[in-house]
């Protein structure tokens, strides 16, 4: 494995330590739990706490979105594995400013279980906890079973909107409802061109044949909608837009925010090649790109590929998206 690694079992602890060292102006480690990253600004008295968490290996997600007017505390799991219920509970405690805490996380079995348990643990401390489960990945289940869909890069918009709403002084119910609306307005799709390897496992977690691509792939290599020939970037971009926008079914003239993220090993210039076509295709379908993000925002170790997220906007969402934030991930 051509990697920078010490003992593979230590990679998560070292990542968190290095991360907090590098960004100590914005984040710190929870003294109660080395697997919880907390914004230096948190907790803010009277503000709804915003928490997320998930497996590691997606950096800058999840920890990178901790900061001012963003997520207050993040529970950190092993590579591609849910954080413990205790870490979620400690993150909830660290974020708690007395106005309740909202946990904004992705729809994965382990996360669902651990958040559920953390909620009970926090309830014992008298902290009111509400949750939003992101399910923006269109290929992970049909539209009729949206609750089965996985959460992917749309979570970044959910955090940004939820963080901004909480910073604006909204109540727990309001923050929850707004973050829920944010993720409801998001649709995402991933395209995988190459696998990644967990350092503790030592071999790729799946295979993609040269010349093929897996459309609809998940953030841990979950199987896509189909495997097909890898075509020209413009065709791939068109297909990604169509998958997302067909599911979205937005009225003509809707403004959208677009996020194109590399999965880890795809060069940044290719993301811009995709984006060049994505914006044109969205325009051709009648929607208007209000704002775009292109880069490595939500990765899967060194997977080769990219994800597209499109979020429909209205005036409130635009204002919240424009809220000034400070976090290492943006």
């Amino acid at each position, binding site marked *: 494995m051509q990697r920078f690694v010490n003992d593979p079992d230590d990679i998560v602890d070292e990542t968190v330590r290095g991360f907090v060292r590098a960004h100590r102006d914005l984040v710190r480690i929870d003294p109660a739990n080395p697997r919880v990253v907390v914004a230096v600004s948190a907790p803010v008295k009277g503000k709804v706490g915003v928490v997320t968490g998930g497996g590691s290996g997606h950096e800058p997600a999840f920890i990178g979105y901790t900061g001012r007017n963003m997520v207050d505390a993040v529970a950190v799991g*092993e590579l591609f*594995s849910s954080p*413990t*219920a*205790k*870490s979620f509970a400690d993150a909830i405690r660290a974020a708690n400013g007395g106005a309740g805490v909202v946990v904004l996380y992705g729809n994965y*079995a*382990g996360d669902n*279980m*651990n958040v559920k348990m953390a909620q009970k643990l926090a309830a014992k401390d008298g902290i009111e906890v509400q949750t939003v489960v992101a399910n923006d990945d269109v290929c992970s289940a049909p539209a009729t079973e949206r609750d089965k869909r996985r959460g992917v890069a749309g979570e970044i918009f959910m955090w940004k909107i939820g963080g901004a709403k909480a910073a604006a002084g909204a109540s727990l119910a309001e923050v929850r409802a707004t973050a829920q609306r944010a993720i409801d307005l998001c649709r995402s799709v991933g395209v995988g061109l190459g696998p990644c390897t967990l350092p503790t496992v030592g071999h790729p977690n799946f295979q993609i044949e040269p010349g093929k691509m897996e459309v609809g792939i998940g953030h841990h290599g979950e199987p896509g909608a189909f495997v097909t020939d890898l075509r020209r970037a413009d065709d791939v971009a068109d297909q990604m837009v169509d998958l997302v926008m067909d599911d979205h079914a937005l009225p003509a003239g809707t403004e959208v925010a677009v996020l194109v993220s590399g999965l880890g090993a795809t060069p940044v210039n290719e993301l811009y090649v995709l984006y060049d076509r994505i914006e044109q295709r969205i325009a051709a379908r009648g929607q208007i790109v209000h704002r775009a993000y292109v880069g490595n925002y939500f990765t899967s170790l060194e997977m080769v590929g990219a994800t597209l997220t499109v979020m429909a906007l209205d005036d409130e969402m635009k204002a919240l998206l424009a809220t000034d934030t400070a976090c290492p991930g943006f």
Partner: protein
Amino acid sequence: MTTLTNAASGAIIAEVAAVIVANKVHLSQIDGLIGDGDHGVNMAKGFGRTAERMQGRTLTLSEAMTELADVLIAEIGGSMGPLYGMMFTDMADSIAATPVIDADAFGAMLRAGRDGVQAVGSAEVGDKTMLDCLVPAVSAYDDALAQGGDFAAALEAMQAAAVVGRDSTVNLVARVGRSARLGERSRGVVDAGATSCCLILHALADGALRRMTV
């Protein structure tokens, strides 16, 4: 009546842990076939740490189970943390106030554990998970008692059913967990969680059988 003393049975959990640690590589290998190959590592980490922390202390069975559950919930995460964590939490709670555990109390404990796993994981028998071992094993225990069997007979019935349940996963297609990604390709291989569950139930029953007093 045959019973088990709660206070004298904490070491059963150390024995369960020893079995899991001894099967670390085996469990990871099985998980590697249709999962991500870490089940043995995850399990050995949680059970091994508990065994270390129990060393030199005398715990009741319910205390030892709570200790194990706490490690799983606080330090393991993933799916195993909550699943086995809730199983042992609910088993511990069910016997916490029971100094002398008879066959009925033991059965109630098993049912509590099974229900805990189902409550947190929302999986069903047939989904190719640890439940395919746990659910029939607990039923076999209950059935043996209902049919007039004694504590020991019920435990042995549970062990036998656990093996059958574990092996039933070979022909199943995974519908939850990581292996579900493979669909039909997940058939033909035993489930890792069912395998660890079978090991746990066996060690638990063996420990109980060895400590029974009349």
